[in-house]
């Protein structure tokens, strides 16, 4: 039995920190980098880590496609429910990342 790995903890903390920073606002290039990370890359990475993929090339592609796919699904659902705002999307994707990290952490503890 072992504890939660550092990458899982770092991913979850990064999602929380970057979500807050993106919501507060940064100068344009930094805001773009932070928003892309919190909306696409971090959720993509957290969801990919839930899969047992070992091939790094397929893993890298999954980070992108899961991040984009999840954000598309979240944004579209919010528009249909008439509750969309980009801030709500940032919060939802941040929460998704944290939840995926919690799920991964539980697997790591159990293994």
């Amino acid at each position, binding site marked *: 039995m072992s504890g939660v790995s550092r990458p899982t903890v770092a991913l979850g903390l990064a999602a929380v920190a970057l979500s807050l920073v*993106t919501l507060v606002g940064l100068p344009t290039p930094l805001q773009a980098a932070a928003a892309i990370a919190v909306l696409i890359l971090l959720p993509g990475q957290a969801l990919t880590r839930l899969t047992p993929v070992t091939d790094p090339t397929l893993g890298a592609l999954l980070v992108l496609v899961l991040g984009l796919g999840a954000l598309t*699904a979240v944004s579209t659902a919010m528009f249909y429910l008439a509750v969309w705002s980009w801030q709500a999307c940032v919060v939802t994707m941040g929460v998704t990342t944290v939840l995926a990290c919690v799920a991964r952490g539980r697997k790591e503890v159990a293994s």
Partner: protein
Amino acid sequence: MSRVITGRLDATIRTMGRWKPREVWCAVAGAVSLALAVGAASTVAVPVSSDLGLVAVLPYPFWIGVLLLNIAFIVALRGDAAGPARRLVMLWLIVALVLVLFGTAAFVTDVPRGEVAFRHLGVADALTNSQGINPRIDAYFNWPAFFALLATVLQATGLDPIAVALWAPVLNMGLWLAALGVLVRYLTSDPRRRWLVLWIFCLGNWQDQDYLSPQAFGFFLYLVVVALIIGPLAARPSEFRGFRRADLAAWWRGRTPADPRPAHRVSALAVTLLLVTVICASHQLTPFMVLIALTALTLTGRLWPSRLPLITAVILGLWLAFPASTFLAGHPPLLDAGIPAALEANVVDRLSGSAGHVIVVQVRIVLTLVLWALAVAGAVRDWRSGRLDLRVVLLAVTPLLLFPVQLYGGEMLIRVSLFALPFIAFQACSVLLPTGGSTRPSFRAAGVLVLTGFLLAVLTVTGRFGNAQYDVFTDGEIAAVAAVQRFAPPGSAIISAAHPTPWRSEAYLEHRYRTIDDLCRNDLATATCGPLVYDYARRNPAGAVVLLTRSSKASLVLQGASSAGGLAELEAWLSSQDGVELAFGNADARAYRVTP
């Protein structure tokens, strides 16, 4: 023998970290060719005056850059006995090619090419402002997922929408190549073939579907889905004994999963289902391509989860029956089906216009035929040597099934050729590379590859940027559209001469956007068309603005719908009518306000 192998392995490991002189030269050549092409493209003056498009005005250093890039790539691909150059060099050369071929227009002007990218920005803007989806607006609001993504990304990042649209072709090609790179790894273990497929895919990509659009996003997801179904979700078919029921049943039961790890297959299936759902919500055509690919691979015993086509059909059916039902109620999808109608819309109608424009269309057809001919030759060669991969043939051919089903605005053949392209490129490599697996190409074969690559690049630049006279906009035209959107009252109609107009990126829902081309149903003679446009403008309660830009007029002339003299006469007639006054004008555009 084992000492020799160990010695070679040691030598390979020793030199793995070191850059070989050939690799350094190839990387430098890539940088030089990129600099030449970018420098040459940035000297092109806008508007482009030739009806052949950019190919006629790009200075010769651009072509030297393209040739040098092809030489560098083939030298790197040829590599040495151990294989092609290191991955970093090959990747760098492909990045350079993407920038040269797909970033060319961005080096010529800082305005995105074509009308549609502006319109797509407008849809995202409309979603942002309304914060809800009204499916009665138009088709985009029945398949809104890509626009929802775009709205979120633009608002959260604060990026300039125009800059995003300008660089979208480069970004989309990057995404497509990333997916194709993974996909090809499941089809071949030959590294030379893997790299060459990516190269040919770039060189054959004249279809110009990589702008900021749902179809570009959908195509990326399609390639990932195909990578998953020929990778973790693939099945190994058993021996085929015949078409008798018992033989078929034995063949079907004898299939085994290509990936023996159930957890991998389950996660790949979950990702596939998410992507299928997103594709169904994003674009009209792509889900059908996915469904066809899944069905073809299942029926040939190459897909392990055999119910996946059914699940996909259910998701697609649900999307069409509910969120997209408003659009489909007024637009029956099979209304204009049939091969004669498809040929008329996709080929015959496009082979008209000025001499230069017809040449451009013919170049597109020739390029497609050249690639298909290479692919057929490669397939025959593979078949003879017993190495033909049925999956590649199926994925290349099955998109053609959609050709007669829907006209798709005369664009179905373009879409079909794009969906087939990755597999056509793969099959073409069978004839472009030596037969013996990962054999190093000879000097002669390398020369043929360089010439083929250069020829394909010339044809692709011609085909891809062949409409530059009317789809590359000037600053004057952008200023005119901005002015019209500023002074046109809410509810008014904005009437442009024809569709290549950089409008609707803002105030998408505030105006009625029409073109003279549509209002007059292609009869643009002043006597018939003038009164139609004038009456339409005056009948609109909030009035109208008639916007005549250089590019929209060039489009009508180039495609043979009108002449420069005819359009000047129409403009003169309109401007002399009661209630019509010139509200804005510059060298490239004039806007007339029409009071109701």
